[in-house]
């Protein structure tokens, strides 16, 4: 693979964080990813631009970009990339690196993931009412009034559970996740 001589420590960190991430260096800057991306116009940088910034070692700009957080993980770019770069996986990796270093600009999206996972780590299942409730109170308390009809509809149609389901093997799952986090920290 050519281009590795142009590498930098940040590029290496990102590539190591994603399954198949080493293909990042093969980016030919064609822009197919950004052109295919449904949320591309709202991103600070298209994936193509972000990859150029990574390869240039622009760590702070990359980690503060909203791009990974506006990725909807639809894999459209991934299936179209002529160099077969696992772009969606790299976006997930950038989220993780950004969370690890607390380098993001806007905490709304990372907080959503954290609240979601807190319910899963506590009960083994996700819990929509708890997730949307906590997230809205923190980040958009007035927004709740705008979707009152939706909430009422979901409740009257019997689609809202007001208590989370707890799996039986919770203690085992907690041990698995604790070990996983310990190993991730060492990796």
């Amino acid at each position, binding site marked *: 693979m050519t281009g590795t001589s142009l590498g930098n420590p940040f590029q290496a960190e990102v590539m190591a*964080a994603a*399954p*198949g991430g080493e293909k990042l260096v093969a980016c030919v800057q064609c822009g197919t990813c950004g052109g295919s991306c*449904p*949320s591309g116009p*709202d991103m600070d940088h298209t994936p193509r631009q972000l990859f150029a910034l990574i390869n240039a070692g622009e760590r702070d700009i990359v980690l503060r970009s909203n791009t990974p*957080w*506006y990725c*909807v*993980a*639809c*894999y*459209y770019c*991934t*299936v179209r990339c002529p160099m077969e770069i696992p772009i969606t996986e790299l976006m*997930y*990796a950038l*989220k*993780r690196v950004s*969370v690890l270093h607390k380098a993001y600009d806007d905490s*709304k*999206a*990372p907080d*959503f*993931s*954290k609240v*979601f*996972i807190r319910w*899963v780590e506590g009960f*083994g*299942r*996700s819990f*929509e009412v708890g997730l949307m409730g906590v997230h809205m109170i923190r980040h958009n308390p007035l927004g709740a009034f*705008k*979707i009152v*009809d*939706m909430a009422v*509809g*979901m409740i009257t*149609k*019997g*689609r*809202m*559970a007001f208590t989370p*389901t707890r*799996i*039986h*093997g919770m203690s*085992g*799952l907690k*041990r*698995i*996740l*604790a*070990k*996983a*986090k310990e*190993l*991730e920290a060492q*990796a």
Partner: protein
Amino acid sequence: MKYSYYPGCSNEKFTGAYETSIQAIAGPLGLELVEIEDWNCCGATEYMALNLTAAYSLIARNLALASKNKDLHQVVAPCSLCYVNLRKCDKYMGTEAALAGRVTQALAEDGLSYKPGTLKVRHLLDVIHDDIGLETLKAKALQPLHGLRVAPYYGCLIVRPEFHNGGDDTEFPTSMDEVIRALGAEVVDFPMKAQCCGGHMTQISQSVGYELIRRILKSAADNQADVIAALCPMCQVNLDAFQGAVNRYFGTETHIPVLYFTQLIGLAMGLPPRHVGIGEELVDARPALSRIGSEMAAEAAEPRKPRKDDKALPMPAPLKRA
């Protein structure tokens, strides 16, 4: 045909109509779905944003539990995201040695293990299309949905190739079209059929999330669909529950019910609408269903807008379907 079954958290209540309809049609179609004992959440798109090893360990616990049953070698997921997560986990445990090593060590904490390749993960659509087959569906459709115009919405995840085993096209899939035609309904052109609904974006950035939903609804409305058929809980919630909010945000007046393809199968089989969860959707499906003579139609449906004089322009005749 017997499979391990991973329902996913949404199907517990949030999108209960999906689960109700799956259970209602499974028996008559000859599908035996054995729920994975004490399964847990797949982490959706959230755990992967925070911790790689924990995310895959969470998913792998389900595969480990399913693989305890030595008689069943296939796992069926009705949710696109669960499907992709389970499939990716199986794949990466075979190709990413370092990650697989860490996941294996984590699972061992609870006496569990999973050998990649043991299980084949499949989406429910794939099972119904390939294993049950169109001929069986046609034979079971005792009350064909003649006259119902359906926009088949695949969403993004199940057709992207790396994780897909059904052989459908990555950008213009047709397997659900075929299923819906087998039920006697009409499939409308639907250019947005494999575009993403935005997933959790309504909670991250309203303007981005709502725009993605608007495009899909508009495409279905422009092609005069009576109903959108969904195959994923998240897609259904975005297109159905957020439809009112999206209309207010953009000043649009779209009103298209969103049903699961399994509900349409149930209706075509002649099951009572309530038995397949009709009535749980927020955008009322009854006016649309009255077109097929469903007994749930409370009011007479609005007559469909007459089409413009189609002789005015020299258009080619529509292709005849076999």
